[in-house]
């Protein structure tokens, strides 16, 4: 009996002291809207494994950038582009050494209607009234969408049909509510673990747009935050890689991947 209670006490003490002994900390991470869903999935695995706690604050990269510039208490910044982390480093608010490309985004042309064949020909035929995309000036996926349209030489032909959302989630919204038949969205928005969530999809070939590299950087506040540093490491690791691939991202750009796997072509 006495032995039992001693064991119980030990277990109890271990439980209470464990988080303290491995120095569980809390990090506040600013994440670009397009990566919010995978980031949440990654955070839940990370928290379970390390005991650290990570709180996510989502917004457009531009807004988060402005907030960080004005003293927002973030430890880590997962941007949707490479420009804003670089600007923060320039401003002396982020750690240059920590900067990593954590994901490459993929662009998709999407219709909410099921079973429609979509490809470049769909855009050329122009048999639709509206084409949604994110604002090319604000969102990397909007810029990529515009590059696709330009490279298919459809800039003038489609100009009257284009409607622009402030972010990629708004472009998605325009299509999902039926207000636009077609829209350029992030592949990650329409993918789930089981594949395409609904509607019809064309995964836009990588040669039609520049790689959408998304950079993460440790902010000055996060330099002494163990949780932020470990989360950054975790983000670049194998477990996170599985999650973000499921969501339609890749850890290296398609061109790099293609070169590595010896020009494996899929028609």
């Amino acid at each position, binding site marked *: 009996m006495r032995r039992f209670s001693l064991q119980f006490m030990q277990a109890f003490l271990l439980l209470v002291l464990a988080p303290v002994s491995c120095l569980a900390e809390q990090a506040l991470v600013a994440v670009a809207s397009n990566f919010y869903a995978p980031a949440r999935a990654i955070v839940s695995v990370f928290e379970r494994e390390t005991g650290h706690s990570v709180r996510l604050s989502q917004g*457009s990269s*531009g*807004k988060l*950038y*402005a907030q960080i510039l004005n003293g927002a208490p973030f430890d880590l910044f997962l941007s949707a582009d490479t420009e804003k982390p670089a*600007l923060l480093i320039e401003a002396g608010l982020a750690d240059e050494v920590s900067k990593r490309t954590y994901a490459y985004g993929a662009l998709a042309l999407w219709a909410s209607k099921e079973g429609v064949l979509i490809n470049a020909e769909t855009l050329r035929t122009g048999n639709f*009234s*509206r084409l*949604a995309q994110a*604002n090319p*000036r*604000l969102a990397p996926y909007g810029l990529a969408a515009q590059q696709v349209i330009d490279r298919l030489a459809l800039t003038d032909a489609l100009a009257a049909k*284009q*409607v*622009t*959302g*402030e972010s990629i989630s*708004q472009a998605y*919204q*325009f299509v999902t*509510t*039926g*207000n636009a038949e077609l829209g350029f969205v992030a592949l990650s928005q329409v993918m789930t673990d089981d594949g395409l969530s609904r509607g019809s999809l064309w995964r836009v070939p990588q040669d039609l747009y520049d790689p959408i590299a998304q950079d993460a950087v440790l902010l000055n506040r996060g330099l002494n935050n163990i949780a932020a540093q470990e989360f950054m490491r975790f983000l670049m690791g194998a477990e996170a890689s599985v999650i973000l691939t499921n969501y339609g991202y890749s850890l290296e750009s398609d061109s790099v991947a293609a070169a590595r796997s010896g020009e494996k072509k899929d028609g």
Partner: protein
Amino acid sequence: MDENLAAIWLTLRLAATVTLVLLLIGTPIAWWLARTRVWFKGAIAAIVALPLVLPPTVLGFYLLLTMGPNGPIGAMTQALGIGTLPFTFWGLVVASCFYSLPFVVQPLQNAFEAIGDRPFEVAATLRAGPWDRFFTVALPLARPGFITAAILGFAHTVGEFGVVLMIGGNIPGVTRVVSVQLYDYVEALDYTQAHWLSGGLLFFSFVVLFSLYTFNRRASTSFGPGG
């Protein structure tokens, strides 16, 4: 800069159209609300006031759904052969009318209520019919209310952002109003342009409110209490 001018011109056109439409729709609603004693008056007043409380993005999202091809308003406009409203100027007009409705109805309702029953009873004894009483007694007496309503409706539409963002589609000259243009500048880190435009908007808002308050004070002193 041309972009800015286009956005400003569009915003003024939108606000003027919305103010005009709202004065036409809002006057009968305000009149009815001021005079009626039916039991569901509270419910109607609450519906009119909803946009004061609802976040504009909620309003915008529901408008996007209802005015879209699968929504009731969208079905109606398609049946009428005018297509769907989102991403068009008239779509913004309809949305802004919902959004600015309380800012026009409430000052009018207050103005009508402040008149009281007495002038109408007097007019009735002089054989003025209901329409006559409305146009020759109610409208002139409620003049300060109309001016307040018009200014608030106009100014509130100029400052509208969330709703337009949701249903506008950011089309230059059609749906890209000043507030959206301003938002684009901030998001694109073009802070110089953003400063110009937001400074202008700040100045405009101040001038509007200042003239409103100056006018109201003068109106209340010249008409005097009970005058």
